[in-house]
């Protein structure tokens, strides 16, 4: 026996663009075969070796071919080219409760679903009780499933699928079912399946979840394999690409202040003009990354010489709370006399401690005494912080800390 539960060799799957498919005879007759339908390769030249007893993750954008690949492994799609060899019974959590009939009771549906998933009748009878216990639906098991809530539905579906004694379990984005307690139960069960030497293949967008669960991760992009390896490495390079693409797509236009904002306002020597996020290399960013230094560039116009201005940047989380206020006076940066003219204030936020989320920027400038407000710009900018590792974290900030064990 091979050490691999699933082995794909140069697998590709071609679809005809659905708008081109002749789905009715009339269309065939009226339009004939026409020009050849447009081809679309959902998966192209993918070779994977998935070791027996491992948890294997697939990541990638929507439409990158992960689910198509999973369906080919599950035998629902036939590869257009290449081969997939798999060993043992494959059960799929691609769609929980897909085989449930609404008029039938939970118990009857367990039997039917078990048959569809290929378990002999005798074995179904053996696991039925276990399934009922796992789903926590004993009270309702003899009611038609049409009376179940959607949560109960997926719980029963999950319970059935994981009890079919699969050698390979395919999981597609279904780890987010049920309440916290049930989710924990699901994870515990997945871990115990892994311990029992079963292979689990997971497709998910929950990158942190995958990092914690998987032994190996493959990254697909537009149907082709980008990288295979350690979860942390692959997730990091995937995120790097995603973040880079986002920056390229819509760089944060410099937040410029309208002239009207000043009118009738302060007869001040200083005006805030613009706010920008840039990388340390000076590229304009549309988001910051947790743990990576970035720079606020604040454009100011001085109409007169200003002595030691105190420039305060307040960061407010989208949910309301003020996260922090950065002030050059408090940090010990003194600009002494700043001559009249256009200036740019650069503030480096070292190893950005902000956790993923959206943050609003408020900028105030006081004179050296701290008593006189020179200019104030509320909601000067808003920017998202993205994860660089897949970890989302708790709260707003990740404070630099070191641990020691004595």
């Amino acid at each position, binding site marked *: 026996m091979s050490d691999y539960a699933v082995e794909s060799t140069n697998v590709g799957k071609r*679809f005809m663009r659905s708008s081109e498919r002749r*789905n*009715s*005879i*009339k269309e*065939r007759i009226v339009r004939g075969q026409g020009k050849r339908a447009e081809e679309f390769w959902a998966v192209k030249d993918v070779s994977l070796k998935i070791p027996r007893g491992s948890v294997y993750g697939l990541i990638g954008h929507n439409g990158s071919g992960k689910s198509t690949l999973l*369906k080919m492994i*599950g*035998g*629902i*799609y*036939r590869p257009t080219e290449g081969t997939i060899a798999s060993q043992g019974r*494959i059960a*799929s959590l*691609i*769609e929980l409760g*897909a*085989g449930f*009939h609404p*008029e*039938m009771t939970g118990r*009857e549906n367990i*039997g*039917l679903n078990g*048959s*569809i*998933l*290929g378990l*002999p*009748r005798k074995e179904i009878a053996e696991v039925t009780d276990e399934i009922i216990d796992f789903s926590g639906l004993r009270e309702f098991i003899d009611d038609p499933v049409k009376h179940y809530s959607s949560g109960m539905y997926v719980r029963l579906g999950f319970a059935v699928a994981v009890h079919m004694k699969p050698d390979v379990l395919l999981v597609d984005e279904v780890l987010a079912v049920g309440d916290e307690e049930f989710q924990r139960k699901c994870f515990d069960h997945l871990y115990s399946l892994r311990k029992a030497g079963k292979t689990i293949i997971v497709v998910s967008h929950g990158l942190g979840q995958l990092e914690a669960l998987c032994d190996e991760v493959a990254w697909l992009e537009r149907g082709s394999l980008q990288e295979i390896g350690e979860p942390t490495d692959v997730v990091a390079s995937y995120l790097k690409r995603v973040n880079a693409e986002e920056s390229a797509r819509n760089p944060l236009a410099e937040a410029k202040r309208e002239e009207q904002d000043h009118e009738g306002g302060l007869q001040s020597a200083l005006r805030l003009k613009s706010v920008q996020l840039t990388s340390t290399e000076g590229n304009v960013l549309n988001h910051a990354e947790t743990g990576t230094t970035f720079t606020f560039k604040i454009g100011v116009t001085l109409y007169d010489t200003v002595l030691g201005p105190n420039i305060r940047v307040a960061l407010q989380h989208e949910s309301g709370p003020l996260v922090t206020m950065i002030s050059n006076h408090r940090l010990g940066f003194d600009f002494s006399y700043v001559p009249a003219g256009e200036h740019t204030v650069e503030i480096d936020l070292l190893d950005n401690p902000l956790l993923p989320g959206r943050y609003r920027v408020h900028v105030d400038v006081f004179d050296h005494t701290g008593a006189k407000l020179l200019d104030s710009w509320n909601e000067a900018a808003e920017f998202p912080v993205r994860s660089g590792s897949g970890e989302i974290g708790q709260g707003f900030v990740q404070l630099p800390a070191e641990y020691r064990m004595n």
Partner: protein
Amino acid sequence: MLKELKKQHALIWAFANRDFATRYRSSVLGWAWSLVQPLATLAIFAAVFSIVFRVQAPVMGNGKTSYAAFLFTGMVTWNLFSGLINLSITQLKSNGELLKKVQFPAYTPVLGASIVQLIQVALEIVVLLGMFLILGNIGVTWLMAIPILIGTAFFAQGIGLMLSIMNARFGDVMYIVSVLLGALYFLTPVLYPMSLVETHSSALAWVVKLNPMSWYVQAMHDSMYTLTAVSFLEVAALLVGGLLVFWAGFVIFNRYSEDIGEML
């Protein structure tokens, strides 16, 4: 084929159980409904064709005539045929969600549904037998009806399998088939005896005779109604013919159902 069917019998039965359990679950009268429809049709047709059109039924085995019994013999056979086809044709679509997500042989829900349909046919046959018992038209030739009906069922299922996979690809197949079945019904000697067509138009008689369903229906008329022996050769031909069509349907179905997950 047999090996394959044997391997999947549990799943076919599971689908049959599902369809059996759910068929009339939300109706009060349940299975009684399955007899109301054919009996109502029988009553209406019997009235219209024997009173209005004055169609003469042939003489029964006991020397009497009964248009209703003649009509019902043909109807039972026809309903077996059309019932299996109509049900099979929609099965892949109605199990589409499942077929798109889980891998299992696509013919299993089709055959499962057909098994339940056979229960309906059995109920109709019981009514037919009751009718003949009351009329006192009983004979050993009845035994011939068993292989004839089995042949009809396989014949219908073979066609049903082919049409069902075609319908998965081209959704209009089911509409075309319902029109064709409607026409074929009148080209089968169900409402009228063969002799009536022969006296009116020999060309039309030829068309009716070329229709395979006429062979099955006529053989049923012979064995159940007129109680005349059907030749062993004819019965064997009807049975083997039905099995061959089923085999062809099964092979074609499996050849084209490999990509069922994408087709639906």
